[in-house]
Structure formats: structure tokens, C-alpha cells
């Protein structure tokens, strides 16, 4: 199980590097798809089937959009070389963040355990133990996202709504009225 986890992580990492580095846009898109499916399998390993379902379906939709966009635009190749200076600077910065990251991830506790043990009962335990009693929903995730933290879900639905309105606004055909139309 654990070894599978690391293999999956490695797979995702390699796919991500290829997606960024390749010059063929179509293979980049396919790598992004591979990352998405890797992530959804990861969610299954972490016992989150809800998120895995959503991840897969969204991934499929996203792939359709991206592949259609790449193919129909005939932009399968990108040209141009990278600047040497920029590459060096980003490599240095990434290396520094990597060093800090190692130190930081040392402090992160085992999966599911908060570092600072708390005296009182944390929220997550209540969700698991009393979720069914308090909300009546057998699916704990539903009881969290639609009852305990329903306000967050309203926010997320609004994020989606905002991006839709934003997309329709940005992609509308005519943005300004002609001078004559201004009364």
C-alpha cells in the first residue's frame, strides 16, 4: 500500500515535469490528464471516494475542453527558448524553497494527527462520532459540507457562479456600445 503510494506520487511528479517541459502542447495536455487521474487514485487511497468521483468527472470534462482547444487551434507546438538568467534565478529560488520545505515537512505530524495535541475534543472527532446523531446524514462528508460547514459550501457554489458570470462577461461578443447608442 505504502509503496504504491510512492509510486503514484513519482508518477504524478514525472507527469507534471513532462507537462511543463514538453514543447508539444497536445502531450502536455495529456500529461495533465495523467496527473488528474493519478490524483484521483490518490484520493481513493486516502479513502475519499466522494472527491475521487468528482475529480475524475471534472478531469474528463477538463480534458475534453483542453484537447479540443489544442487540436482546433493548430497550436500543437510552442517555440522560443528560455532565457538563461530567468532559468537560473527560478532554479535557485525553487532549490531554496525545497530546502525550507524539507525542514517544514519534518514538523508535519503523521497523517491525521495534529502536532499540538489538544486538551479538548477537536471538531473532527465530533464530526465522526456524532455526525449521524446530530445531522441525520449517514454520509459524514455530506453532513460536514452541507450542515456543519454549509456556509463554506455556499461560498464555493458562489465561486463557481462568479466564474461562470465572469466567463460569459469576458467572452461576450460586443463589449461597448457605439457612440450613437448612448442616448
Amino acid at each position, binding site marked *: 500500500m505504502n509503496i504504491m503510494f510512492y509510486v503514484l506520487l513519482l508518477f504524478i511528479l514525472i507527469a507534471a515535469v513532462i507537462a511543463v517541459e514538453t514543447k508539444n502542447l497536445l502531450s502536455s495536455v495529456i500529461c495533465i490528464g495523467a496527473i488528474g487521474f493519478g490524483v484521483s487514485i490518490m484520493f481513493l487511497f486516502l479513502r475519499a471516494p466522494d472527491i475521487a468521483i*468528482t475529480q475524475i468527472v471534472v478531469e474528463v470534462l477538463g480534458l475534453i*475542453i483542453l484537447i479540443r482547444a489544442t487540436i482546433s487551434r493548430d497550436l500543437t507546438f510552442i517555440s522560443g527558448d528560455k532565457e538563461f538568467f530567468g532559468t537560473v534565478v527560478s532554479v535557485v529560488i525553487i532549490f531554496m524553497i525545497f530546502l525550507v520545505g524539507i525542514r517544514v515537512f519534518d514538523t508535519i505530524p503523521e497523517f491525521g494527527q495534529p502536532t499540538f495535541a489538544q486538551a479538548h475534543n477537536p471538531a473532527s472527532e465530533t464530526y465522526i462520532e456524532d455526525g449521524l446523531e446530530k445531522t441525520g446524514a449517514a454520509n459524514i462528508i455530506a453532513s460536514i459540507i*452541507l450542515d456543519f460547514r454549509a456556509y463554506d*459550501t455556499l461560498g464555493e*457554489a458562489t465561486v463557481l457562479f462568479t466564474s461562470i458570470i465572469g466567463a460569459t462577461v469576458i467572452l461576450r461578443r460586443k463589449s461597448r456600445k457605439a457612440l450613437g447608442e448612448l442616448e
Partner: protein
Amino acid sequence: MKGMTVIVKTISSWVKVLIILFGIYIILFGHLTPGGGFAGGVILASSYVMLMLAFGREFVQKDLPLSLDSKLDCLGAVAFAMIAVLGYVFGKSFFDNFLSQFGRHLRLISSGTIPLSNIAIGLKVGASLFLVIFILSTFRRDSSDDKQE
């Protein structure tokens, strides 16, 4: 976009029933089994995306006009917000699950406002995801038309 061959068209019109039914199942049973409004909504949207790929844009436009789709989007959002406000009116506070003791645990009718919220979110997510894909494809056609003229 004219759509694909007869094979694809026929298969997708058969499969569409299954997908829509599965989406409805995921939404309605969201409080009992994995799934819920978000996942179910995406599944509903994907059935229409499949139809769009198979039959072409005009066919789908006839079946689910863009204006109706954006109305459904708004309607779902308003419905979800209204469930929150109903909690304020009938219950103790905003987003209060004022029906939570209605029905028996582990049955379809249980856990108060959660299934209602799932339906509202499913409507909202389904409509808006389809809208996104539709807008993106429509936009591309317009820009290519400009080039040809």
C-alpha cells in the same frame, strides 16, 4: 460542428439515459452514499457535453437553450441561498438544519435540509459546468468566423 457518425450518435443517445439517471441517483442519495450535489451535477453536465460532442452544438442548443441554462444556474444558486435563509426564518439561525429530526436515519427521507441542498447544488453545478463548456466552444467558432470573413 456537425457531430459524429451514426454509431456515436446512436450509442450516446442510448447511454445518455443511463448517465442522467446515475447523476440523479448520486444527487438524491448524496446524504447516504458517497457523492452529492457537486459530483452528481458534474455527471449531469457531462451527459449534455457528450450529446454536444456527438450531435453537434445546434442540436443541444435546441434541446437546452443557453438562456434557459443560465436561468437554471441562477435558480440553483438562489435555491441554495434560500435554504439557508429558511433556516433563519424557521430555525434558530442562518443555515440551521431545521428539519434534521424529520424522518428516520439511513432512509432516503432523512437529515433535513441536506438532500434539498444537494438538489439545489446539483442543479447549479450541472447548469454552470455545461454553460462553461458551451461558452468556450461557441466563442471559438465566432473567432474563426471572423477570420474567414
